[in-house]
């Protein structure tokens, strides 16, 4: 819970910004961390990100269109934090295409029933900041470089998630509910961002099996069943612990076996653009069944009413 800060009951997130074209945390203009300038401020999963070999990952993203890059999702987890990573396209001072990365780390409590919503807000924040900063840094303005160097680019890297509109492209409540069941999940991401360290893919079984040839992948999130399907034996279901008498929320076991997020029951959204038609087909099927059930119920009610009259 290192990064958790609750002000007015809203969780706060700390952000990172990476890009190229300025000399901020490294003595070159190559891809580097701009915020925070000082690595001593980094926390848990943020430190893990420092070891990423960005070259090949960025190279794979350059051919994508802006919208495709914005649609990528990656959320990494550990016992006390989650970290969302987002990318956006911008331009360097020579008008060449360049990429920018934002991350957003939130301290979490796995027993928190709002965890799905918190994740959705953290993803929304990192995505919004990526596209916003891509515009502000386009062309590497000198003014921005000065602000980054003298630490006046931001008044604080802590952002309130309270006013962030939750990300709607992924059903995060269901995803988190599924993640809570399994021991060994490091993160969940769209196939192109698996290099960041997630071992569960937001995609189809086909995509997962293809990605498995390249990355250490242990499962995929099935939108139809809203559950994680394992692809290796490295993921284990959490064993239920004998429940001691509970006196307060602080005394509950850290990883409940089947936590349920309060916001379940929303229509499923596709986890990636590639899966949209599958999810939409499933939604249509569900709606048809619902309509049939409604019609049957109305018929039954009419029959009973008639019988009662007779």
């Amino acid at each position: 819970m290192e990064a958790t800060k609750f002000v007015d009951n809203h969780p706060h997130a700390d952000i990172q910004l990476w890009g190229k074209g300025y000399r901020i945390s490294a003595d070159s203009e190559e891809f580097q961390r701009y915020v925070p300038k000082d690595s001593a401020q980094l926390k848990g999963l943020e430190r893990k990100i420092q070891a990423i070999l960005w070259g090949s990952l960025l190279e794979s993203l350059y051919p994508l269109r802006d919208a495709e890059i914005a649609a990528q999702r990656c959320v990494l987890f550990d016992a006390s934090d989650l970290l969302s990573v987002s990318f956006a396209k911008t331009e360097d001072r020579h008008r060449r295409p360049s990429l920018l990365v934002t991350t957003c780390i939130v301290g979490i409590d796995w027993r928190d029933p709002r965890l799905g919503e918190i994740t959705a807000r953290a993803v929304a924040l990192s995505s919004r900041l990526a596209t916003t900063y891509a515009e502000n840094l386009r062309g590497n303005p000198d003014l921005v470089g000065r602000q980054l160097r003298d630490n006046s680019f931001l008044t604080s890297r802590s952002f309130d998630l309270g006013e962030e509109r939750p990300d709607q492209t992924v059903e995060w409540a269901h995803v988190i509910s599924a993640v809570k069941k399994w021991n060994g999940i490091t993160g969940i991401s769209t196939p192109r961002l698996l290099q960041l360290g997630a071992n569960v893919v937001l995609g189809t079984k086909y995509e997962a099996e293809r990605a498995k040839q390249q990355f250490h992948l242990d499962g995929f999130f099935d939108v139809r069943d809203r559950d994680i399907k394992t692809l290796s034996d490295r993921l284990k279901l959490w064993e239920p612990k004998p429940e001691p008498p509970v006196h307060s929320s602080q005394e509950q076991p850290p990883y409940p076996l089947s936590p349920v997020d309060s916001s379940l029951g929303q229509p499923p959204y596709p986890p990636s653009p590639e899966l949209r038609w599958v999810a939409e087909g499933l939604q249509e099927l569900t709606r048809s069944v619902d309509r049939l059930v409604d019609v049957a119920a109305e018929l039954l009610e009419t029959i009973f009413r008639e019988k009662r009259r007779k």
Partner: protein
Amino acid sequence: MSNGLDMTVNLRALLPAGEWANVQVLNQPTGLMANRDWALFAKAKRVRDGGKPAFIKFIVAAGSQAGSATLWVTGGGRLRDLYERLQRIRQLGRRIPVVPLLEIEHSESGLLIAMEEVTPLSEMIDRGEAYRLSAKVLEDLDPDTIGNGWHHFDVCPRNIGVLPDGRCVLIDVESLYLESEGMYNISVPAWKPFRAPNQLVLDVHGQLAAGNREIDRALAARKLRFEIALAAAECVLGPIPFKQQNQALDRSIVEAWVSSADAADPAVAFWKQELLSAIDTASVPPLQHLRQNLESAVSFSSEPAGAPLVQAPVAGTEPVQSLGTTISAITPSPAESGWSKEWALILPMVHALRAGKLGGKEIVEYRQALQEVAARYPTHADAWNELLLVVISYEKDAVLALSVVKEALKHIPGDDGLTRMKNIIQMWAGGRQHGSH
């Protein structure tokens, strides 16, 4: 800050690029005018708080060579005081109907005030889109219900904004003052005396001259109420056509102003009556009463039948869940006697009416039931007021309304509300007759 270009660059430099996006400086003075500009304005998107659109004002601090007048308004001392006052106002939150302040920064170069973007009421009035806001202005800015202890010295449609959620708030935050020991210290007494009657202008200037730019709580409340009411009137009547600083508002100005509005509109008649009365007395009634009377008097003919635009609230009663109560239920059985019992029976219909759940026939039946109740309890103003509301706002019958109000005044002579209503209805009925010729 020697020329406009430098000012623009400096404003961008003052705004951290990680906190603000899409910064558009709105005034970029060049040449000789550059040195005269005392403030820079910009629109931007706040990166925090979900990315809200914002309006930024940067008051440039007076230089060491500045004259005494400039130093008075934008000198370092005044900007520091203003910064501290705005911080206190910000902490008070919604206890003052002020635009949400997103950031306040004070530096040697000046004072930066960033606030949520609003639509100025003046623009809506100019476009003819503010009619519906007349009652809203009275409700949202009412110091008696929102919270007192504050004073805005220059309330006018240019200094009132409408937030995206529809709430009316005060802008031009430098004109906001907080009460101290029953007095308001008006450091820069800039206002528009043509928006006040002569007596009020004299009183304000008299106190400011006598008391070291201070006005007392009572006068501040009177001035504030008048200016808010006037802004609410402008929503219906359009902008005041005469704006000469040395010309106070008088009866002839109001008569000329109102003459260009639709005389058949009861809202126009209402405001004419209220403004003339306010000029005579140099004061206006509590804004809550004004709003209630406006809501009772106004007929919004453009709305669907049975659903007036301004819904008159009924305090202290539970909302009706369904229209289970029929009209006949209003007429009490012989066992039920007494005004309170009868009124309790009426309340579901009161709510149903305001919820737009009564059709034309039911409204007629409701009015007839109210006429019976008013006849049985002629000294109860509530029955007459409800009856008048139905006749004016729903049946839109000026002749019947006039006979009802006259009947009511026979039983409750001298009632201020009914008397005012009678005058308005008379003007309305007269306007209709005039219009029909």
